[in-house]
């Protein structure tokens, strides 16, 4: 299952004044989980086992691969599997642009370490359409013009699919609440709500 790491996923976004090592030491002391090997001296770290094997399904296709233990699911998808639909908006769990479904649950893939996903079933925005036939929510986004720049859109749509599956579409207020983990800086919110409503109504 996805791990929502307390440590910024791939080594970025450290509070100023703390080096990576002191930051990890601080979070470790505070009880945070850290990947093994990162506390070692750099020279030792280079030799320590920094890679792991992982076998997972992405949009129905099986991938068995060796990943750097530091690699987030988002970076695995984008940089290694060439699935660039999921976006990196903050790399810190705050924007939702990287939302994917892991075993049916919506997670922020930037905070999910890839190496922990053995056996997981991942769905990204690339896996929603059925050939040329768009997923009803994808079509609803176009119909309602629930996108402008389109950068948050993959995350919004995957999140919306999760929202509909979870049954959080009883009212506009409920949709607004359950879609609030996904920032849209272009400000498409009212239309995103309408798109989720449209797609939920068809189910």
């Amino acid at each position: 299952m996805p791990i929502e790491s307390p440590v910024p996923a791939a080594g970025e976004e450290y509070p100023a004044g703390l080096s990576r090592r002191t930051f990890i030491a601080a979070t470790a002391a505070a009880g945070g989980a850290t990947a093994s090997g990162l506390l070692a001296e750099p020279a030792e770290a280079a030799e320590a086992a920094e890679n792991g094997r992982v076998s997972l399904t992405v949009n129905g296709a099986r991938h068995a691969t060796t990943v750097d233990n530091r690699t987030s699911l988002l970076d695995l998808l984008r940089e290694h599997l060439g699935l660039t639909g999921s976006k990196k908006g903050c790399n810190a769990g705050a924007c939702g642009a990287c939302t994917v479904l892991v075993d049916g649950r919506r997670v922020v893939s930037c905070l999910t370490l890839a190496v922990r996903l053995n056996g997981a079933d991942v769905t990204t925005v690339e896996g929603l359409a059925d050939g040329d036939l768009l997923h009803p929510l994808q079509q609803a986004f176009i119909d309602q013009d629930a996108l402008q720049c389109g950068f948050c859109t993959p995350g919004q749509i995957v999140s919306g699919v999760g929202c509909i599956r979870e049954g959080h579409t009883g009212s506009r207020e409920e949709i607004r609440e359950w879609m609030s983990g996904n920032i849209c800086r272009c400000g498409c919110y009212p239309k995103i709500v309408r798109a989720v409503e449209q797609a939920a109504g068809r189910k």
Partner: protein
Amino acid sequence: MSPQPQAAVGRPVSRVEGRLKVTGQAKYAADQTASGTAHAAVVDSSIARGRITGLDTAAAEACPGVLRVISHRNAPTLPYLPNRGSLNLPGERLHVFQDDRVLFHGQPVAVVVATTLEAAQHAASLVHVQYTAEPSATDLTSAPADEPTTYARGDAAAALASAAVRLDLTYRLSRMHHNPMEPHAIVTRWDGAELTVWDKTQWVQSTRDELAAVFGINPASVRVISPYVGGAFGNAARCWPHATIAALAAREAGRPVKLVLTRRQLYFGVGYRPAYEYRLSIGSDLQGRLTASVHDLRSETSRYETFAERGVLVPGRMLYTTPNVTQSHRTVPLDVNTPTPMRGPGYSTAAFPIESAVDELAHELGIDPIELRRRNEPENDQASGLPFSTRRLRECYTVGAREFGWNRRNPKPRTTRDGDWLIGMGVATAVYDTLRAPAQAHVRLDARGTAVVESATSDMGPGTYTSMSQVAADALGIDVPQVTFRLGDTTLPQAPVHGGSLTMASIGSTVQDGCDRVRQQAIALAVGDERSPLYGADPAAVVVYDGRLHVKGDPARGETYRQLLTRNDRTHLEATGSYTPAQSRASMHAYGAVFAEVAVDARLGMVRVRRMLGVYDAGRIISPKLADSQAIGGMVGGIGAALMEHTVTDHRDGRIVNANLAEYLVPVNADVPALKAIYLNGRDDQADPIGVKGLGEVVLVGVAPAVANAVFHATGRRVRHLPIAPEDLL
């Protein structure tokens, strides 16, 4: 006006690139994943001002996968030739890795290039930098200012002194960050002396010219590609220092390099809307007619460049009839990076003090705020003396008041309650000038009746792809799906920056011109062709609809593009359209009236926007479905400005404390209620050939003051700074 029937323009067309965006296929800059591309991670300074005295890169260089660590210690000297284009400012742009000086907290001091992103990021964290810090200033309120820019008409001091009512008010606006969802990203590749760049940019030519100048190469050797931009709001118009870093890194590492700024780095690696102190005195007679206004502004800029928001002084001169006006705007150089235009630049800044003050005056005099604005509606532009091309602000207010139910508003503040919630309604005026710039477009119509239209503009979200396809479809007389519009590539015909709401007017007019030329070529071919049913017809009487040329009023007499071109052995027709703005003989602006209803928790001070309405006079609306989205988005941005967005700087070391999306708050879905936009039907033929006035900026202007005025009406508390926080209302 075009003789062509209007079929596509004005219709609610869905976004033509929508399918690519909802399936994740639209490729933004960081989505370029060519194998062999190295990754870069920037190390930034942790002091605001001083010198780098030590820079230990050994640990970073020892990391597996690290290819290069570049800093001022080993970077080549870069030419940094003058470049008056690319929106460069007075002063000198930041030079990266050229010396040991630190000019602001977060300035790039080194870059790590590695084979993987993980290695680059980790190694960047191992670069150990030592500094000698010098005293720094990052606080606008206490630092000395530059010489002011001034304006005066009449005798404002005397008029203020003798005014029946006089208000002296000080407003403060926080610094704001654009925070587009797409972080700045760039991929650079050298092939010998040729540089190819995939950039997040609102202006491919800006990146091209700046990189050419920095590296001292011919602009023709630089190609910049940018088909999709994940929002920008002004932030990707200039070419920022990281572009140089990426190009340098690629050259030094001998392979393509991808550099994506972190969200934290977006708070100092690129520009922002500057903070302001805005003192405003207004005088009026007892009927609420303004007699004088005095505007004193201070805004932050960097020490190395002077940035002043264009347009910030304009509304104070022309929005309301005011015989006596003085203005002075001083920039205040600080140890910060340089600000840049953000959506509605200048005008949205000025709207908060001016529209708040007008509201205060209305309250003071017991006059309805809309009525007070009507009493100050000018007959012409008092700053330039020019007539308005179109100005339908009165109508915006009439329509808006009716639609919003303004007459249900009890004029007395703090009188309407809904349980624990205090309810208030507020209004404000929106204004933004209609900018236009020279542009070119290439149009090619092929024998199947499909067209490719190209211009090096951009689409950061408003829907350039779609609206230009609509304009082209009508001018050629074909359907929207038959048109392919291409943009975002320096190999395409020249276009101005995609900003300042000038894209529709400028590119739209050039697209129309190019398509008109092609259509006229086809008509000329037909009327001169004995085998054509149109042979001998008056070319001026021929129109094209649904891909078929025919005589106006006689639809039976005609033939299709396909028939015409095939018979004449023509694979295609093509032309280059151009547009050069005419000298303006009118004052041209888009206008709007913004209405807001808020609920304020009487005990907690929490403000919730309940509903908003914007009514706009923006000229002709090309793409109503997309224009509606723009307006809704503008309101959402304005809600952020009114209630959430501000930068917190630790003035001891210049560090931005909330440089992330968890603490720099922007509106989320739950913050945004029912929003409605209405565009008045019409066009402005003096503005440009297609009659538009621009709308991306004006829809943000006025939102924050409408909310602030509603908060006053709800609570009786006047907050003169943004954002309005719960503690201001307790």
